[in-house]
């Protein structure tokens, strides 16, 4: 019976009103308490609000749980009937600021009396919100943490309310329990790219991960389905969904990881010849026996028809990623970024090797030349406009120690924003841009990336450019930078 509720959560169409209603009805029907997870920051928001004489605005994307938090605070304040405009202990609750007609008036009133207002982030940017309010942005909350809490709760409900059967759903659950932290990492990657996944989307993601298939009868009968259609791995990528559903968070992100498509000869040989290499352990899974695969593989080796094993290969590559930790996704720098994030979160010092690698990448980007300098940072630019990729002059040479980071905390202990700081210039470092740095430092060319990254670097650079002297440069065969500093006096020009 819980699967039926879970399936409703997984309803891909975001028709909000009917969605909440249908789920509530099912909870009532089966007499199951609603799934709720404990969000630590609700208490701290409450405390802060009580101590302050300001009104509170809870903002965030739709489906972020704003109403949920308002309801919690309403109860804490001893409110009776929770509805829009309700008052509890002298505090007025506005449940949906978007729907309010006289928005400006409400904001004015909220400066004088205490209000708690839930507002989608977008609508607020139409108003000048000054320091008169406490503002809590729920998108500055760790989706990975929410995911982990929610998944534990859902797995607990399944254990409690569903009976185990030999079917694809329970195979998914078994697999999920083994690879949970790896899936959590995928959501963490969204966090690291500041692509917040709302509570509602997390529900959809988890429901789809477990139940998969579009078939409505699946969860009732728990039929034996073809593993290729609804196994956990392909469900995570949303491969069972329609293209429009797949283009939403977090599936859109999962698709972009190329998981199952990215591989190497070495990995593919490991899969294909696992039996010969006595390495079968790594292929073992809950979905099918290996004999089935070997039979198809032998045929493929005989006649070269790759379509026979294509789906199996995708499955196994994903299996190697999730179960055995092979790095088969687009990012090569996730672990390093995670380490940097943790270091900064704990207020520790960043390793010099990371700064040096960033210096190397920035030097290559700023100078438009394949230099090998990593101990100094060269701020270079073209003689013409700053959009030109090849630099002619060096504006400034800085020691690598000038590279610094700033960590800005969010609502919970797992959310944070990393900024790269060099002198007065500041830039948000997400996983994508960190990956860009890493790859440039490894020798990739700028043109192999989306223009977006280069533009972001150029905006950062423009904050660093101040011009007094003229420093020309030359790059030698080993990629070392030689400088010629010229003093441009009023009546004399000389080499310094």
């Amino acid at each position, binding site marked *: 019976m819980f699967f039926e509720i879970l399936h409703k959560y997984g309803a891909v169409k975001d028709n909000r009103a009917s969605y909440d209603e249908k789920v509530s009805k099912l909870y009532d029907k089966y007499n199951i308490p609603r799934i709720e997870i404990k969000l630590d920051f609700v208490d701290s928001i409450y405390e802060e609000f009580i101590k302050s004489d300001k009104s509170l605005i809870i903002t965030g994307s739709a489906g972020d749980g704003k109403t949920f938090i308002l309801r919690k605070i309403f109860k804490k304040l001893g409110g009776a009937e929770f509805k829009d405009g309700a008052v509890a202990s002298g505090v007025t609750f506005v449940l949906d600021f978007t729907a309010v007609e006289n928005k400006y008036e409400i904001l004015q009133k909220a400066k004088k009396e205490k209000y708690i207002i839930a507002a*989608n982030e*977008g609508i607020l940017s139409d108003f000048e919100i000054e320091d008169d309010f406490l503002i809590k942005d729920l998108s500055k909350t760790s989706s990975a943490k929410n995911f982990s809490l929610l998944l534990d709760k859902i797995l607990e409900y399944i254990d409690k309310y569903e009976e185990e059967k030999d079917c694809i759903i329970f195979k998914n659950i078994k697999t999920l329990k083994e690879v949970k932290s790896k899936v959590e990492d995928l959501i963490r990657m969204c966090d690291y790219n500041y692509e917040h996944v709302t509570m509602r989307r997390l529900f959809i993601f988890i429901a789809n991960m477990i139940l998969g298939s579009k078939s409505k009868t699946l969860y009732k009968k728990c039929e034996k389905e073809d593993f290729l259609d609804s196994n956990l791995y392909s469900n995570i990528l949303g491969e069972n969904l329609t293209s429009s559903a797949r283009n939403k968070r977090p599936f859109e992100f999962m698709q972009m990881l190329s998981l199952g498509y990215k591989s190497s000869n070495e990995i593919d040989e490991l899969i294909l010849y696992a039996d010969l290499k006595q390495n079968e352990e790594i292929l073992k899974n809950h979905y099918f026996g290996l004999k089935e695969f070997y039979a198809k593989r032998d045929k493929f080796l005989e006649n070269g028809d790759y379509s026979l094993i294509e789906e199996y290969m995708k499955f196994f590559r994903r299996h190697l990623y999730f179960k055995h930790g092979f790095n088969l996704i687009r990012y090569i720098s996730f672990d390093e970024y995670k380490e940097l994030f943790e270091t900064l979160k704990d207020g520790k010092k960043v390793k010099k090797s990371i700064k040096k690698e960033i210096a190397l990448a920035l030097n290559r980007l700023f100078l438009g030349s394949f230099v090998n300098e990593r101990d100094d940072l060269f701020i270079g630019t073209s003689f013409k406009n700053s959009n030109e990729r090849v630099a002619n002059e060096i504006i400034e040479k800085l020691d690598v120690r000038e590279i610094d980071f700033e960590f800005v905390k969010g609502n919970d202990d797992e959310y944070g924003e990393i900024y790269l700081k060099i002198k007065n210039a500041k830039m948000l470092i997400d996983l994508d841009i960190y990956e860009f740095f890493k790859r440039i430092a490894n020798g990739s060319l700028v043109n192999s990336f989306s*223009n977006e990254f280069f*533009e972001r670097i150029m*905006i950062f650079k423009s904050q660093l450019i101040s011009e007094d002297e003229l420093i020309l440069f030359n790059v030698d065969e080993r990629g070392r930078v030689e400088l010629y500093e010229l003093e441009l006096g009023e009546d004399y020009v000389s*080499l310094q």
Partner: protein
Amino acid sequence: MLAYNEAIKLLSKYNLDDYVIPAIFGHRILSPSNPYFTTLEFLNIINSGIIYGFSEERVKNIKKEKLVKLLFECKEDELKEEFKCCYKEKFESYEVFKLIIASLRKMQISTDSVKVEGKFLYPHSFNMLFHNDDSRRNHFTRSGELVYLMVKRSKRFNEFIEKLKTKFSSSKWDNVINLLSSSETKEEKLGFLPQNEFFVYDMLCEDLIKILDSDIPRRDIFYYFSIIVNFYVSFYILSVAKDDFYFVVEILNDKNDNVRKKSREIYRINEESVVNVVKNYIQKYNVENFELKKISSVKDAHRNYLRGILSGRERTNAYRYLLSDEFLKLLVLLNVNKKMKFEKFLELLYERYRIVIGENEARKKFKLSTFACFRNNEKRLIKRMRLLGFIEEKSDGDIYVKV
């Protein structure tokens, strides 16, 4: 536009073989030989005005003959001679002198011109601007003079000059340029622009001021000035020709669709309006002996000033309105203060620049059985802007343009 007899009276001092086009659009609007030259010509006049005073009749063009010779004519041995003769006291060594010359040469605006009169420096300050003698006006075609007159006649001209002076007045190259060359002046007559007041003049000046007010670094000012100046020359031509013109802009599509068809159609209509305004004028004032082929220079100018900004023929052989990344970037920088709803941004492009990209704006201008193609056009714009880092998407579907 001016009445024909009045035009003849006013224009007689210019010794022209045609008064019709100057009476309607102004003195010589020719296609630019290079995307930067109109702005360069414009800034040259501004520079001269700041030093010698602003006039609408005459200009003292500032020349730097020695600099031009050193940079664009001298070969290595001649440079050596020059150094020995005149620069030993000013530069530490020949190597330093050569390094400076080589650096300045890298600042040359790349052109097809092999002749010295078509060679200029990318200006980082007023001191790097100069005028070259070009009797046939192949490079400074007078369009820059018209741009100057437009800005001069706009309401915020003085404010523009003050801001330009603050942002553009000095560069580290100034000393070097002074050491290399002195300046000479040559007084010449300025071109002729019919209307004393026109809304386009104010729009142009406003956007130039916005560039100066923005965070755009000084070294990029000239680059963005060139884009906006070229856009407004075309905008001016169309505004004179037709009150209610607009651009239907395709965001480059792989396939042919109705946006492309509409863009081509409106492109042709706009071109036609330039021809028609001239034809109507000839009829109205019974002008005899007018060679119709003369219209084509203005017609071409409409296209060529927009080239690389808002016109092109990628993937087809017919011209239409296409939005370039650079112009898009500038439109965002000029009009978005921190954050703006995407729909509002499209509305602004339509209201201010008459650019139709999305469905809402298209619906205001014409009827079609379906506007799905314009919705897709919007989507392509979002995709492009996302790549440029200008888009912030909320999970509830709200899309914002951010700087």
